């Protein structure tokens, strides 16, 4: 179409300034796409390192509350009575009370600090997977987390000194990653009886509930709240799904924020397109007068200038789209310490067409006013313009 040719030739005639406007769009598109890819990769990377699937409810003593109600204890704990209340509230779902502490350990002369989880031995298979050995049964054994195994070179049968006592490793745990309930990778799992005997501790630090039907999560949470928090808030109840969502939401917000920062450069590019288009209209007032006088409608003049803005935006977006791969790659190398595996995820790559669409959209929007101005020039005055 002849108006498209007008646009092409006008761009060619003012190649340098058009190139600069295109460059602005390229930078904007690369910024938006790269930031989008980076943000999404961050979300993916965080999601991957979080192991929970969302079927878990975690009950903590309410922060700052002297649990045990009037026992005068300073530490926040969950008492045996509260465990029974939780048990009544959750019905048939599995309830796993935990002691949590930390202690010095020694293996063959090598010392370190490990988290110690005290659990009823029947509960261990519900929560943890083993790679070697057997699940803990008696009181004299322990299971070791993956990091501990590699740090201290532990094997089934190894002896670990914990404080003054010695435990034999009966099983090695599979790697679990960061969890919201427990983090056993750097921990020793011991029996509840051993823990309460050694540390003289009857109350628990945390209770995990594994909900069999994920749809019951809210109902179970409410039941616990109703049982324990009727008068005062005694415990805090979280479900991992909620925590997961919160974290993902936070990272998504960060992602949106960084993409928005990229958007600022696109805004600047839009101003540049606007400027170029205004110059184009001003330089061509006489020409607009001519074409209007010989029968070109207003909307056709408008189309002519919008094509021009579109072509600039399209060229910038196409080049920007290609360069976004490189931009995203660089951003991941810098921010995710070289882990570029998330670059080719569809949810990351989608930011490239998004960025391109924004690039074209910005150009078109920036071109609307100049095009409108051109279309609405008075043909007589435009013809007289020198």
């Amino acid at each position: 179409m002849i108006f498209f040719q007008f646009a092409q030739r006008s761009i060619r005639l003012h190649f340098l300034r058009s190139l600069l406007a295109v460059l602005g769009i390229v930078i904007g598109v690369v910024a938006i796409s790269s930031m989008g890819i980076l943000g999404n990769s961050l979300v993916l990377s965080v999601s991957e390192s979080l192991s929970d699937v969302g079927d878990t409810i975690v009950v903590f003593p309410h922060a700052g509350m002297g649990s045990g109600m009037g026992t005068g204890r300073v530490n926040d704990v969950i008492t045996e009575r509260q465990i029974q209340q939780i048990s009544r509230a959750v019905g048939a779902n599995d309830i796993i009370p935990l002691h949590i502490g930390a202690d010095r350990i020694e293996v063959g002369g090598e010392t370190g600090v490990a988290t110690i989880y005290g659990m009823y031995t029947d509960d261990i298979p519900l929560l943890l997977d083993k790679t070697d050995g057997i699940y803990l049964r008696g009181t004299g054994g322990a299971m070791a987390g993956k990091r501990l195994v590699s740090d201290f070179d532990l094997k089934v049968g190894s002896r670990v000194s914990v404080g003054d006592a010695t435990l034999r490793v009966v099983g090695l745990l599979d790697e679990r990653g960061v969890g919201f309930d427990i983090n056993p990778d750097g921990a020793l799992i011991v029996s509840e009886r051993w823990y309460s005997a050694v540390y003289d501790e009857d109350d628990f630090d945390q209770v995990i509930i594994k909900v069999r039907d994920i749809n019951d999560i809210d109902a179970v949470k409410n039941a616990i709240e109703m049982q324990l928090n009727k008068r005062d808030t005694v415990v805090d109840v979280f479900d991992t799904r909620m925590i997961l969502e919160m974290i993902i939401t936070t990272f998504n917000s960060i992602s949106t924020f960084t993409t928005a920062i990229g958007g600022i450069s696109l805004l600047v590019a839009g101003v540049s397109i606007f400027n170029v288009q205004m110059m184009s209209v001003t330089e061509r007032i006489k020409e607009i007068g001519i074409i209007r006088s010989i029968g070109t409608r207003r909307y056709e003049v408008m189309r002519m200038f919008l094509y021009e803005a579109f072509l600039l935006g399209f060229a910038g977006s196409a080049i920007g789209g290609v360069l976004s791969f490189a931009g995203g790659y660089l951003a991941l190398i810098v921010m995710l310490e070289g882990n570029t595996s998330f670059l080719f995820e569809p949810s990351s790559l989608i930011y490239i067409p998004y960025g391109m669409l924004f690039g074209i959209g910005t150009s078109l929007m920036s071109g609307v006013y100049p095009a409108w101005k051109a279309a609405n020039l008075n043909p007589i005055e435009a013809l007289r313009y020198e």
Partner: protein
Amino acid sequence: MMPVIRLEDVSKVYPLPFGDVVALDHVTLDVEKGEFIAIMGPSGSGKSTLLNMIGCLDVPTSGNLFIAGRSVREMDDDELTDLRRDTIGFIFQTFNLIPLLTVRENVEYPLVLKERRRDTWGRSEELMAKVGLEESLAPHKPSELSGGQQQRVAIARALVNNPAILLCDEPTGNLDTKTGTVIMDLLTGVNHQGMTIIMVTHDPRIAEYASRTITIVDGKIA
């Protein structure tokens, strides 16, 4: 039969802060098909306003204006634009070719606007030949042509949609005498084929080509 152009008591008033300016003052004029009219008058007398009015670039403040039997007073901008495209051909003193387009594209342009497609049936070439433009000039840009050649392109462009009226604003004003004569001969030839021509000029020798001369003074036909 209605004249091809009819002005009935047409006035054009431009409201300005220091008072209204009456550019055309109750002008009544009929132009029959095939007439060649020269409009003369001093600067600021209203010649250009009259030409703009007939060219549908402007509408009267009062009175009625009929172009090819249609009243333009109530037309919206699109209708006026279409009337210019289909019924009127413009020839300007400064040629006013479109610098981005080649010679052939300039000639073809109004046809593309009207037909919504490129000229594939040779109308542009036919007109270029008619106005004496060599085919080899077709791919050139207007800036590469002489004044006389540019005005020939403008005439070919004005004729491409076979309009009922040709409006010429000082068509020889930017040309030497010899080239001016060639252009006037061309316009006379077109007029002899039945085209109505309205021409604004300062030059009495050019006005002699016309079959009727109208003189405008202070917005009125003298």
